[in-house]
């Protein structure tokens, strides 16, 4: 019974990170209709930024979060504006392959600079836990969850309360109408992609605190991000959060019962069930 609660808590803690990763992925997918296969690589970059800042300046990772966000935002903005923009309205295959190629590039550049050996960030509180009844909660993961929730709330406020946020939502609803209303679509798209990259970078910092780093670490996150988006419903911040938490829990129980090597299989089964039973996800709106 204690195992049940431990698994549940572990799932929630992991789910927070999944939610932030999925949020960036969902933003780009929902608004620009692009599945960014380089999203995992962006997460990895965020993790490496945290690593560099930690080893060079002893900067606590939590402080690196906004720094990584800003750096990755700029990177994402540039990538969209000057590379992806060329094919933003092309058939899906084109953007799939383009982002795949970018991922390959990014991962290999990192490989060249940092080499493939596994790195990690160990802070003073890395091993510290507190207990909640029968459950052991690592401090690092708990703070990660708090940070993830904070990021989610900030994103929601941004999308609903700021002018840019509203322009973004307008563009996603009707690009023609948005243009007529004076929205500079290329700029908005670049901002959206930048936000997606920024969120990925922030998530990467969170990941770096609990997982080890290597250039290929981002790969598994793409499928998970996809499943979370489908599970939670595309195009909503709450959807990404709920989807992330639910998925985290499912994966936690799944690896308990089936074994940790089969996480992708679990993800896929969840994905297929959701797609067949309720394609719009938990929070999604039914589309025409």
């Amino acid at each position: 019974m204690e195992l049940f609660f431990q698994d549940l808590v572990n799932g929630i803690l992991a789910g927070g990170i999944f939610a932030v990763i999925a949020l960036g992925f969902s933003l780009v997918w929902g608004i620009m209709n692009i599945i960014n296969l380089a999203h995992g690589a962006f997460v990895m970059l965020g993790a490496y930024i945290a690593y560099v800042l930690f080893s060079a300046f002893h900067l606590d990772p939590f402080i690196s979060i906004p720094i990584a966000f800003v750096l990755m935002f700029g990177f994402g903005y540039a990538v969209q504006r000057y590379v992806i923009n060329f094919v933003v309205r092309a058939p899906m295959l084109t953007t799939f392959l383009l982002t795949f190629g970018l991922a390959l590039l990014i991962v290999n550049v990192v490989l060249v600079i940092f080499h493939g050996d596994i790195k990690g960030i160990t802070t003073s509180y890395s091993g510290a836990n507190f207990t909640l009844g029968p459950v052991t909660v690592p401090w690092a993961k708990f703070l990660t969850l708090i940070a993830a929730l904070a990021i989610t709330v900030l994103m929601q406020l941004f999308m609903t309360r700021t002018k840019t946020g509203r322009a973004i939502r307008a563009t996603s609803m009707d690009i023609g109408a948005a243009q007529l209303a004076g929205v500079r679509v290329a700029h908005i798209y670049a901002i959206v992609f930048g936000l997606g990259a920024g969120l990925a970078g922030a998530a990467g910092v969170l990941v770096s605190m609990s997982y080890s780093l290597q250039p290929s670490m981002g790969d598994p996150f793409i499928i998970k991000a996809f499943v979370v988006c489908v599970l939670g419903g595309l195009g909503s911040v709450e959807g990404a959060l709920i989807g992330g938490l639910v998925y985290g829990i499912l994966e936690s129980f799944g690896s308990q019962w089936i074994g940790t090597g089969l996480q992708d299989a679990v993800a896929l089964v969840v994905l297929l069930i959701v797609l067949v039973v309720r394609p719009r996800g938990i929070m999604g709106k039914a589309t025409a």
Partner: protein
Amino acid sequence: MAAEAASGATLRRVGFGGITGSRGAFFACCGLLVVLLAVPSLHNGYIENLFRGVLMFATLSLGWNVIGGYTGYVSFGNVVFFGLGTYTTAMLWDKLHQQNIAIAIVTAMAVAAIFALVLGVPILRLRGHYFGIATLGIALATQEIIANIDWLGGGSGVTIRQIDNFSLYYYAMWAVCTASFLATFLIARSKLGYAFVAIRENEEAATILGVDPTRYKVLAWMISGMMAAAAGAVFAGANGFIDAPTAFATDDNVFPIVMAILGGVGTIAGPLVGALVLTAINETLWSHFPEIHTLFFGAVIVLVVLFLPRGILWLFKLRGGWRGFIASLKVYRV
């Protein structure tokens, strides 16, 4: 007018034009395949491996082309069929001490067909991005599952004893590639090809015109899977060893797609041309920049997608010179 109609009728009977593509490209590829038959007689192991690779990738690309190019359902996980093919050969040797390549190919094709049939009915109801990622998920999940089953070799993989006449693997791969090429040609000029293309162009209209979409999509996926599995069956023997990462390698998943794009998606000659060109590029990069060749490969993918989305062969049909080319690039911008 009558002469026009007559020659048009002749062309139609022979089966060129429209979705079959140009006569020139087809016969050039036939010539290429004939030439490739001569490779083993050069008695150069490196060259034989290289061109066996070209034939393998051409087959994978031809297979992907059936579901992704002609039918318009972009699969991002067709490597699963290749992997199933490799494991078929591995198991035939490991459990039954069966080395016969032909038996391996046929069995692998049967496995792939069943797999595509069973999974295809639910999966092919998904469109666009969903289908692409679902196929990717299937490939990753299958890899994981197989890696976790000890009876299949688990983490350590399976060794396959190779036949003595090693060049037979080359000829087998050649046969698989040629059969796939001819099958693509026959499909393109038959009613089946029209069903696939109609589904790609407008699935609702195709349904109203009598094309059962589920049936034909599944059929397309089965055909593409059988081609990939056949290639995998031969590869396993030639490689002598199979484990999950080798069987389901990302390269074998993505390269065929890039090759099809490079050569021209939805054409018969495209995959073959793309396989040749991309292998040439890859080999050049390998020999000059061994450490960072993957990095350059990523760059190649990006460049191909940005500048040659419709493939090399389309460049020959493009009118308007440089300005026409640049204009064609701006079409998808915002």
